[in-house]
């Protein structure tokens, strides 16, 4: 009966209840949409960074971290990569010959990270080959060794597919050498900085030039379960104490920070939205209590305990919030699902500049299902909090006086 009374009380003033429900729905949709946009953008950046740039774990010679040069190699790198690949938690480990150098065209020079790759394992570890939009990914055997560079870098150097280009770097003895390459492919991706600062060549070509055919300066490890990166890194460090094993959160603390606080930050954002709407709910219920003073007085006069009256008001508020919350969250879910498939093109709003920061210009809003659960809990908690004052006002009524109120 209490539920029945509470439910019917909500619809006593239909317009007022509908207004607050609509406010709750709009507030939730706005909050969830902005949260989903943010999360979608960050998730995209995270995926790009892990999949194309740093993988889950990287292994280096300890000296290499401060001085990324060919001198500081991982001893027995190929065997180590092979062993690591066989671990059950590992999808693949790819050996690389990567170090810093200088790239020069006829008109310009700039510093780059030269990434010498093992084609077979690199294709399993990263999807870089899929980023190539013109030419091929290091599979053409020409007179000059091939190189794949970013579109932005090509524009900066004023070169194009087939152009000859020179890389300058140090060999394993620290001697500076230069070598010519031919641009065999152009790639593009969401991160402009990666596109401008990384070039891909074959490790076998590079190793010949630096004077060590078995050189490995970096091993990138991709795990089967990306959540187990800490445990996996720790195990690898124990197995190979002479090398430096770092997981992605250590390599990119900024990314880790963003991903860790993002979910919580978004819950707070939603909390603020819901808090704002809760004041509307509080106002609605308070008005309804003040309009029902005589009736509440009668209920208490005939023997309805104060705790029941309190419960009734809390129930009314919670029901009202649950109605608005359910509609709002369902509508938000549908909106986010629709936009996730369709994508929100920020380029038309000048969003191409997002690439400067590593974000895609087309954002696919998304949210973890757990987020909706958290929001539901926040709605109920705020509904109960919003009901406390009206409920307290109701139980403070003196029945003998309340029944006489006009």
């Amino acid at each position, binding site marked *: *009966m209490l539920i*029945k*009374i509470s439910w*019917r*009380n909500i619809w*006593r003033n239909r317009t007022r209840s509908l207004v607050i429900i609509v406010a709750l729905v709009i507030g939730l949709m706005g909050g969830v949409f902005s949260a989903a946009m943010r999360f979608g953008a960050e998730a995209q950046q995270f995926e790009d960074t892990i999949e194309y740039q740093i993988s889950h774990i990287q292994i280096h010679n300890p000296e290499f971290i401060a001085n990324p040069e060919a001198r500081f190699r991982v001893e027995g790198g190929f065997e180590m990569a092979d062993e690591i690949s066989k671990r059950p938690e590992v999808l693949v480990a790819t050996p690389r010959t990567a170090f810093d150098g200088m790239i020069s065209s006829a008109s310009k020079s700039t510093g780059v990270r030269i990434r010498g790759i093992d084609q077979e394992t690199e294709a399993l570890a990263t999807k870089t080959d899929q980023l190539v939009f013109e030419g091929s990914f290091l599979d053409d055997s020409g007179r000059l060794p091939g190189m794949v560079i970013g579109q932005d870098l090509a524009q900066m150097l004023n070169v194009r597919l087939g152009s000859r280009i020179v890389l300058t770097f140090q060999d394993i003895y620290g001697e500076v050498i230069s070598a010519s390459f031919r641009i065999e492919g152009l790639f593009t991706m969401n991160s402009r900085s990666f596109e401008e600062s990384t070039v891909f060549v074959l490790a076998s070509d590079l190793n010949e030039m630096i004077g060590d055919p078995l050189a490995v300066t970096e091993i990138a490890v991709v795990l089967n379960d990306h959540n187990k990166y800490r445990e996996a890194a720790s195990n690898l460090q124990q197995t190979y104490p002479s090398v430096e094993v770092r997981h992605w959160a250590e390599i990119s603390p900024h990314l880790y920070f963003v991903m860790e606080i993002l979910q919580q930050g978004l819950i707070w954002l939603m909390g603020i939205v819901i808090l704002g709407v809760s004041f509307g709910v509080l106002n609605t219920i308070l008005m309804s209590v003040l309009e029902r003073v*005589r*009736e509440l007085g*009668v*209920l*208490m*006069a*005939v*023997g*309805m*305990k*104060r705790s*029941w009256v309190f419960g009734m008001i809390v129930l009314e508020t919670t029901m009202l919030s649950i109605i608005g919350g359910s509609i709002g969250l369902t509508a938000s879910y549908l909106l986010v699902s629709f936009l996730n498939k369709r994508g929100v093109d920020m380029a038309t709003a000048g969003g191409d500049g997002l690439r400067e920061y590593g974000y895609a210009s087309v954002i696919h809003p998304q949210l973890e299902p757990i987020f909706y659960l958290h929001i539901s809990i926040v709605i109920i908690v705020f509904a109960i909090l919003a009901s406390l004052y009206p409920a307290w006002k109701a139980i403070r009524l003196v*029945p*003998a006086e309340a*029944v*006489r109120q006009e």
Partner: protein
Amino acid sequence: MKTVIKTTNLSKVYKDSVVPVHALKNVNLEFSQGEFTAIVGPSGSGKTTFLNIIGGLDKPTDGHVIIDGVDIATMKESQLFDFRLRHIGFVFQAYNLIPVLTALENVSFIMLLQKQSKQEMEKRARAMLEQVGLGDKINERPGRLSGGQQQRVAVARALASKPDFVLADEPTANLDTESAFNLLDIMARLNKEENITLIFSTHDQRVIERARRVITLVDGAVDKDEYFERA
């Protein structure tokens, strides 16, 4: 005849204003089972205060209210809620039904609070609505009933839970003559048939003429306590 309510030296002083107001002064009264009593007096004579105190809605400054052998003046508020629920029926001046419940649900409501079984509750509520002549209105909400019909639902509600006595605070004040007589007929019949003790506070001569006992309060004290033979 069994005594239902006994008040001894009942006094109430309101100290809210600068000068204390003596709303009741040493009221000693007894009410027996099945009495039909009207409490009359001018405004401010203490009628409502008296009803509030014997109804457990207010506490006396002094004195005792013995109901069913228990002094309710010493009860805690939480005990009073339960006491009111089990022993007292209320009919208020302004009907005071729950607007979102049907007539049947309004009448069942107190029995629900008493935790009676659903079947028992519904059977009794239907029977009471039949008794007050509203058997065909059980599913109507108060908004669709006339003032007189609403007050009859209120009477059915007050009696449905089989209280020891019913307190009615000016129940006919808002009713037209026909509705008032109709209501009084019903209450008089229930008083006789179910031996219910009815205590009215009223200014209404129509009620006073039906009452078998009329107590007149003046300035918070009992001025007259008269018994009448009625048909």
